[in-house]
């Protein structure tokens, strides 16, 4: 197996997902099959090939830094799961 149980556990933490025992086996099998297929890429010599992140030529876009109207606070908070006094509310992060 290319993908181990430990890999699944590590990736789950990175992904902020919890994976049950039964799911871990299923994911391991599926990811193993997918990644094994993807090993066909190793047939290619890419030593001198440059990576492409965007297909078309891109350059940084500059604009004047001007003050413009932005989203109203009420509108920005309207979809919040929990809010209080104009803030997003989350479970306590710091103790004490």
């Amino acid at each position, binding site marked *: 197996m290319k993908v181990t149980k430990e890999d699944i556990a590590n990736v789950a933490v990175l*992904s902020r997902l919890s994976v049950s025992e039964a799911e871990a086996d299923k994911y391991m099998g599926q990811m193993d099959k997918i990644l094994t297929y993807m090993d066909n*890429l190793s047939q290619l010599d*890419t030593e001198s090939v440059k990576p*492409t992140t965007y297909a078309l030529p891109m350059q940084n876009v500059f604009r004047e830094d001007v003050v413009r109207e932005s989203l109203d606070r009420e509108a920005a908070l309207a979809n919040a799961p929990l809010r209080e006094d104009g803030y997003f509310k*989350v479970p306590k992060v710091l103790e004490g």
Partner: protein
Amino acid sequence: MRLYEKPAHVLHDMLAQKEITAAELTRDVLARLDETEGQVQAYLTVTRESALAQAEAVDKKIASGEEISFLEGIPGAIKDNICTKGTKTTCASKILEHFVPPYDATVMEKLRAQQPVILGKVNMDEFAMGGSTENSAYHPTHNPWALERVPGGSSGGSAAAVAAGSAIWALGSDTGGSIRQPASFCGVVGLKPTYGRVSRYGLVAYASSLDQIGPLARDVTDAAHLLNIIAGHDEMDSTSSTAPVPDYAQALTEDVKGLKIGLPKEYFTEGMDGDVEKTVRAAISKYKDMGAEILEISLPHTAYAISTYYLIAPAEAATNLERYDGVSYGERVDGEDLVQMMTNTRTQLFGEEVRRRIMIGNYALSAGYYDAYYLKALKVRTLVQQDYTEAFKQVDVIMAPTAPTPAFRLGEMMADPLQLYLQDVCTVPLNLAGLPGLSVPCGYSSKGLPIGLQIIGKALDEATILRAAYAYEQTQSFHNDMARIGGND
């Protein structure tokens, strides 16, 4: 013949000539929606009241003698990953079940300036991840041509609505084939523009270097007009192209004499359905009759495109979907601390395929595997792109099937994700290269399922692929066929 059966350009003329009213048209399409929706289930949200109000406003304008724009008063549907101010945008995910965007996507602003009638938001694979619309967290959509089959995906709701007559036109998005493949499965025209041709601002991000919004339509003329409306630079999307936008509708002529058409041998290989090959080759032979030149070409890295795509897209998705953390918008599942809350939210509210792609993406990006998978895929992406660059030195357009098979059965591909990924063999390579492609109906399988011809163009040369598709369309009448579901005759 009912009004819902006609393409937008015909309806536009009828509205302008005052033969019909926008309210009559909208009521007819809504009636069709009511007749078909129980079986097809293309929609997630129907905005019936605002649709009728929009139609009435257009009728007032026509009555007062004002001229109307192409799309004015013509009812259409929007894929549910395009932000619509004041109307729920769920991405077919539980995590955005009640999300109402406080702003419009740029394409919506451009559309609304034309005053079309917006019928609602249509179904898709959750976060556009899938090729069958079965990954919707709400319900699958059924292919109007064969209800036990999928409409394709991820823009399956868009394609099914246009095919069923419950919309005249629709917008979709295409990251690895998500406009073209459902267009092929449902017998409609679907156009994926060049990366950057259409602003992605307000399109919920899946894989940002691949995503592109485009139209699904009854025929090529409608697709060209829709592209006219949505194309162009947008300062809100720094990857959008500043190249001038030609008039795509003006470019539609029947002249393909001397057009050089490349047939990539790698797209006509193992796993292709016999009916698909026969039908697509018959369509291509029409071009020969019209004076085009057919050349066999090779795109040698095609076999590596699936691997490349299914590393890059999940890697980008894993990053893009980090934002769904239960804090600022979307749903939340409580937990005893912040990390537990985020973990519970994501675990319980993302569907299985979305979780799988996030896991694969983070695996490919993680220490120890980054070079072997992610970086390798970026390098092979260069090779895939170079194949096209070489090919386009010899040919003007490339033609191939859109999908290796006609629509498959619901449930048929669900057990094995890899098998479903392999279905994308004809569509993903051009997303990797950023090129435009369209699917135009070219006939039926022996079971009566629609088949699409894919036409791929040079970067920013949508005009040529639209012209090629238009010329073919004039030789037959597949685009006039409506799916024969209940209430059709």
